[in-house]
């Protein structure tokens, strides 16, 4: 009944939410528990993102430029967010990057609910 892309995208949004909240808490309290939760869920989210991207590329319509650029754009946002947090130089922008990541997952969800095969991300 459910498409694999729908399930993966749903899991991605759940974990991205966990990562976002724990990230905000970690910024406030510098607590190690929140940092662990943030990292663990963040990396799981990244794996799901990459799985969705691979699923997209191996779709029946083949690789499309629009699809590849959308996925690469998302990956660039993720990389920038990690760099911002790790560098410490632009730490105050980390929460904004987190919000952008949540919006990104909302877009993935909206384009993949049960109709993955025809979304613009080519899933």
């Amino acid at each position, binding site marked *: *009944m459910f498409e694999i892309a729908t399930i993966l995208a749903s899991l991605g*949004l*759940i974990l991205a939410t*966990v990562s976002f909240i724990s990230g905000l808490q970690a910024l406030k309290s510098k607590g190690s528990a929140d940092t662990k939760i943030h990292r663990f*869920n963040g990396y799981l989210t990244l794996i799901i993102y990459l799985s969705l991207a691979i699923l997209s590329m191996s779709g029946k319509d083949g690789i499309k430029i629009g699809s590849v650029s959308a996925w690469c754009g998302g990956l660039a946002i993720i990389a920038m967010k990690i760099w911002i947090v790790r560098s410490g130089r632009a730490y105050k922008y980390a929460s904004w990057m987190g919000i952008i990541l949540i919006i990104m997952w909302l877009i993935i*969800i*909206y384009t993949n609910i049960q109709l993955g095969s*025809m979304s613009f991300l080519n899933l």
Partner: protein
Amino acid sequence: MFFLGLMLLVISNLQAATIHVPDNYKTIQEAVKNASPRDTIIVHEGYYTENIIITKPLTIESTKGSDASIIHAAVQNEPVLKINNVNEVSISGFTVTGSQSAGIYLYNSHNGQLRGNKVVNNGSGIVLISSNNNTFVNNTANLNEQYGIYLELSNNNILEKNIVNSNKDKGIFLSSSSYNELINNNVNLNAWNGITLWSSHNNLLKDNNILRNRYGIVLSDSNNNILTNNSTWSNIYAILPIVLIYIGILLYLVQKHLLRFI
């Protein structure tokens, strides 16, 4: 000997011929015009700009499928393929596009078959008026300005495994059409209704996916229709992300409490 020769001549004339486009005729319409009833027209890959009117029973098929054989309307306010007052026309494996009227239009035509055609970016995709006992299988009717598939005063037709997505009005519209079977079709993301039955009775809608339309299945002034095992989650996409974010918040709290015990 004379009679034997005459019989052979008659039999050879009765046998259906195979015509190749563009080898025998440059355009499909030219091939149709010169074909005898029950001939087969084989269309090789290419981009054909024409409006085709079919008034005799013919089989028209492409060699390499719908992506390689594209028919674009030459006159935009006429249908690309018009099947007019004829029985047993079969069309398979074309992309039909560019008409502000209809991609494939059947008027008073019966026992026909449409298989594996892509009818995209027209006024309406496939239109049947007073046409009965036709079979449509594995066609795609996407991105049309009005309806994907429209049946009016048309009965006993079978629509199976068709994809009818992203049309700017309704997906499949049955108007005063009865005893039709809509089985295993995908009707998604249409601007208004997925499947509409208006003054249409005794139709069978079975195993269809009707997702993310404004309304899923709409029945108006229609009786004795059978609807079984159709999926219609039209509006779940509005609720699902909110539910998922809520689950995320709960999962965060669970993880935080779990870490305290570790």
